[in-house]
């Protein structure tokens, strides 16, 4: 597959559960080799989007394509090429983890068990233990193994790190990065913003069923608000001067000024250069702060 081919394309994809719940007019493009991270609060519509892509639920309107195939019309064909981790754990009774994974491999018509063993080892999953006796984290590993075990071209992972210990989380990040190096594409949702930040090349912030922000990490950074505190010897700029230069939330104290700037701070720096700055502290908002600023908007 050529680099930067479109793997996922959603056009005005909606699923209306009523009472303003669901997903609305979702336009999304994920390209080959990307790790796209969906972040958003509970009930924002992340899992709904992933379920729509997997044809687990039917859309109210709009369309979705994966590998240029309609997700509803080519559902089976696409599932052969996708590894999907649902947001909820499975609940298979009275069988071992190995039995479940072998069953799911059989359903896929795959006889080779080598990759299943390799991935289980990497995630430190004991295949011989009864599934019901496993901890939450180990059950999550079963879900992850089934998503990776058939070497899919596209991974769709709903909250993949939930319940995993830090060692396994790191291993999972490595597995995702390896998948991308092999030319695969990953779409994941997460509440763990640091995970998204560390592994995703592009991020979509989804709130109230709508994607409100989307872009590469660099793009999001450029949109980020800088929080700046400057101390001065002698004269200091006035509020009006700072606001004229693009600053917001200006607070002027005896020796220093505090302000925020959204986007480029060149004009503000030019203004500050006319004064004798004794101390300058500039901080970008973290992804978490961006997240909360959007959520609270």
């Amino acid at each position, binding site marked *: 597959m050529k680099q930067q081919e479109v793997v996922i394309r959603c056009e005005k994809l909606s699923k209306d559960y009523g009472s303003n719940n669901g997903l609305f007019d979702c336009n999304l493009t994920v390209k080959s080799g990307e790790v796209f991270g969906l972040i958003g609060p509970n009930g924002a519509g992340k899992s709904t989007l992933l*379920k729509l892509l*997997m*044809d*687990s639920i039917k859309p109210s309107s709009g369309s979705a394509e994966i590998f240029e195939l309609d997700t509803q019309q080519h*559902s*089976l064909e696409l*599932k*052969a090429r*996708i590894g*999907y981790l*649902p947001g*909820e*754990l*499975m*609940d*298979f*009774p*009275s*069988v071992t983890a190995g*039995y*479940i994974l072998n*069953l*799911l*491999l*059989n*359903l*896929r*018509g795959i006889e080779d068990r080598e990759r299943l063993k390799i991935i289980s080892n990497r995630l430190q999953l004991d295949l011989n233990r009864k599934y019901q006796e496993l901890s939450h984290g180990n059950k999550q590993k079963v*879900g992850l193994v*089934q998503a990776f075990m058939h070497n899919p071209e596209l991974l769709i992972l709903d909250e993949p790190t939930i319940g995993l210990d830090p060692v396994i989380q790191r291993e999972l990040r490595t597995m995702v990065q390896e998948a991308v190096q092999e030319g695969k594409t990953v779409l994941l949702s997460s509440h763990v913003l640091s995970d998204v930040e560390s592994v995703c090349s592009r991020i979509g912030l989804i709130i109230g069923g709508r994607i409100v922000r989307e872009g590469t990490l660099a793009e999001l950074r450029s949109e980020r608000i800088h929080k700046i505190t400057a101390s001065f010897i002698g004269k200091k700029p006035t509020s009006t001067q700072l606001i004229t230069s693009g600053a917001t939330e200006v607070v002027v104290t005896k020796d220093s000024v505090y302000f925020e700037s959204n986007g480029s701070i060149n004009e503000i720096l030019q203004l500050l250069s006319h004064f004798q700055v004794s101390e300058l502290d500039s901080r970008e908002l973290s992804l978490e702060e961006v997240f909360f600023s959007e959520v609270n908007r």
Partner: protein
Amino acid sequence: MFAAAIRERRATIAAWLIGGTLAMYFEALAIAAELRDFPGGPEVLAKSIMPTIEAMRIIRWPADRLDTLGGYLAYHNITLFNYFLALYAALQGARLIRRLEETGDIEFYLSAKTTRAKLLTVRSIADFAAQMAISLGLGLATAFALQSSGEANTSGAIITFLAIGICISPVFGLGLLISQFVKNSRTAAGATTIIVTILYVLNNIAEKYSWLEPIKYLSPFYYANLSRPVIPGFSSNYTSWIVMSLVGVTLFQKD
């Protein structure tokens, strides 16, 4: 997937067979002794207990040839097994897909290159196979109980239970159908259980009230009771087997 579905049901099948065999065996021994030792003989016994049986009609019916071990067992045990097997089938139908949806297992199945229709069909066939395995096992257990009590009727016992297994299959489809219109598998199971119980009771009392009689034709228990060759002199009605199988398939296809 079929083997996995059967595997999920193996404990239930085993419980049915062990419990059923024990119930049939010891009940047959007790009834055989009662028939043998009752003062005046089996006919007097049958006549003397009829008022009690009439009074308990709502729980068990029909009662035929109570002067024979096959007849007494058919009344005392098989009518109840018929009801409980129907409840089992109804619950399996009610939980078939809804339970998978509630646990989230369905997403794992569907993401593994399978369709909802295939999943539904394979698991329904597994449920039907389990139901028939239980029926066959109970038939064999009854045959063994009759043999041990001196009234051998192997084919009659087996055919009687196979008739039950087949004739109650529509309630599986009914459970499946109801599950689509309610919020969860518990509600579906509860609603289906109530309907199956009403159908069972109606069939028991229908002959007593002329205005109820036409309603008995809606009850799968009526059709199961048409085939009771376990009772000496009684035969099987294979047309009812075919009709009830078709009703079962039709209800299944409504999903």
